[in-house]
C-alpha cells in the first residue's frame, strides 16, 4: 500500500505568506517550477484570472537599457518586452498593465522561463503596485 506522506504542512511552495498592503490583506504565493515560475498575488481570497507571460528576449540576451533597470521618466521609459496571454478569467488592460509594471520593477524580469501570474487586486493603483513590487523584492527575490 503506497501512501502520500506530508513533508511540509506549513508551506507547500517556495514562498507563501500574507501581508497587509495599504490596509488590505494580500496573499502571496511563489514557486519555481522547472519550466515556469508561478506567482499569485491576491486580495480577493481567490484567483480572478491567470496570465501566462513569455519573454520576447532570451534570458541571457535580456539586457535592460539601463544598468539600474527601466526608469520612470516617460521620455526614457523602456519596458521589458513580454507577451501576455490570458489563460483563464477576465482579461483586462488594467491587469495587463499591472503585470507589466511588476515585471519592469522587480526581479520577475530575470525569470529564465515563462511566468504564470495571477493578480487579484481590489484597487489597481500605483501606490498599491509599488507596495507589491517592494514586497516581491524583499520577501521573494
Amino acid at each position, binding site marked *: 500500500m*503506497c*501512501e502520500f506522506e506530508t513533508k511540509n*504542512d506549513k508551506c*507547500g511552495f517556495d514562498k507563501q505568506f500574507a501581508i497587509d498592503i495599504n490596509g*488590505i490583506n494580500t496573499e502571496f504565493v511563489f514557486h519555481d517550477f522547472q519550466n515556469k515560475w508561478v506567482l499569485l498575488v491576491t486580495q480577493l*481570497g*481567490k484567483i480572478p484570472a491567470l496570465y501566462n507571460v513569455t519573454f520576447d528576449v532570451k534570458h541571457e540576451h535580456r539586457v535592460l537599457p539601463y544598468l539600474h533597470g527601466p526608469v520612470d521618466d516617460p521620455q526614457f521609459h523602456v519596458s521589458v518586452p513580454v507577451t501576455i496571454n490570458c*489563460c483563464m478569467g*477576465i482579461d483586462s488592460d488594467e491587469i495587463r498593465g499591472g503585470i507589466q509594471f511588476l515585471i519592469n520593477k522587480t526581479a520577475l524580469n530575470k525569470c529564465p522561463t515563462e511566468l504564470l501570474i495571477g493578480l487579484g487586486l*481590489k484597487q489597481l493603483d500605483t501606490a498599491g503596485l509599488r507596495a507589491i513590487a517592494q514586497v516581491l523584492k524583499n520577501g521573494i527575490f
Partner: protein
Amino acid sequence: MESCAVLPTQQMEACGDAAKQQQMPLPAAGQAFTSHMAQLNAGALQITLRVLKMNGSTMLFLSGKDAERLDEFAIAMPARPPSQQIVSTTFMGESGQSDSVVLATKLSMRHRRQFYVSMNLQLDSMARSQFESALVSYMQNNLELFV
C-alpha cells in the same frame, strides 16, 4: 464590478449617486490561504504534491519528484444550483480531455468545490489507479488541508 475593481477609491467616491447605487461590494478576502507539500514514494511512483487551499477553491500541483514541471492546468467547479453538473476546462497544455481536467472534475464532484489541478505525470493504467487510491486516502485523512 470590473470598473469598481480598477478605479482608485477617490475616483469611486467622485462618482455620482446613481453610480454609487450600482456599486457592488467588493468580495471579502475571508480566511488566510494555507498550503502544504506531500510526497508519494512507491517504487517507480515518485510524486510531489503541492496544495494551496484558498477561499472556496483548492489548487493542486502534481509532478515527478525529480522534475517538477507545470505543463498543463485545468479547472473544475460545480455549476450553479439547481444543476448538479460540474463544469470544467483545460486552460493550459493539452486541449480536450487532459489528465488534469479528469482529476479536477472528480475532485470537484466529490467535494462540491472549485479545484484547480496541474497534473504533470506520465502514468500507465496500473500506476494511475495506485496513484488515485493513494491520493483519495491521503485526502480523506487530511481533509482540513484541502477543503
